[in-house]
């Protein structure tokens, strides 16, 4: 099976932009899966295998931080790298995400080069 990435964002626009940026960055994923929040992502990850997760932080229902917290407790998915895509500023929220296992972060608005720089090293 080829590489698969999961994009978690409540905005369908941002999911589209992330998908487009991955392609423009030359990052080859055979399939890009999408979830609208952390809860939907956990349900999807119970059924589907992915190689990388890109997640927003500020989302309704279950935000990106709570998603990281719950993912960390699930053996089958805890080692999948997660890159946070966020508008949030300041070291504390990014620090919290990293302490919960996030592999990196990209701030919006981002360019394909910025995506490549962070994600290229993880796949």
């Amino acid at each position, binding site marked *: 099976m080829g590489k698969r990435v999961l994009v978690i964002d409540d*905005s*369908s626009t941002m999911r589209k*932009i992330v998908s487009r940026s991955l392609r423009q960055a030359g990052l080859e994923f055979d399939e890009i899966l999408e979830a609208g929040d952390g809860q939907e992502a956990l349900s999807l990850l119970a059924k589907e295998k992915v190689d990388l997760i890109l997640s927003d932080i500020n989302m309704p229902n279950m935000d990106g931080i709570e998603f990281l917290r719950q993912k960390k407790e699930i053996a089958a998915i805890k080692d999948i790298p997660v890159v946070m895509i*966020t*508008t*949030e*500023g300041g*070291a504390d929220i990014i620090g919290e995400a990293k302490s919960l296992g996030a592999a990196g972060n990209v701030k919006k*608005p981002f360019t394909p080069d910025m995506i490549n720089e962070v994600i290229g090293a993880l796949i």
Partner: protein
Amino acid sequence: MERLQAVLQEKLTEVLDETFGSMAFLGVCEASAADCATAGSLREAQLLVTEPVLMELHLATSEALLRQMVETLYNFDADQIEEHLINDLLAEILNTLAGRLMTALLPEQQTFALSLPELASEEERLDDKPLFEAFYLADDEPVIVRLQASGPQALLNLLQP
């Protein structure tokens, strides 16, 4: 307050251009209220900055511009564009803009928090004169940003030196 107005204008112009450029390959230029007066309908969204100071950021732009951006982004024909895509794009522009603006305004280690963006209407807009209001054109379509703050002096005190 003159310094606050000047800093807001400079930083907003910078991040608005960056946001529209990266999301839809569009540049923006500063304009006047008269330039932005349009017969076409405007779509509006707002969000709150809840920390470190309470502020409301409001974005209005034309439906025509949003439709054009959705066409570019999704590679759709005009008749394929659904209402929710237009609203979602407007909310995402505002969310990205707010994050970039706060990052540009505040010192590097200063944290901030944003609410989720909500669609707004002219009727819901605050009656008070906004603390700051700026007018732009993107591809000849109006883009209007308004900012209301509960304590402008608190915002001024937090600005990057």
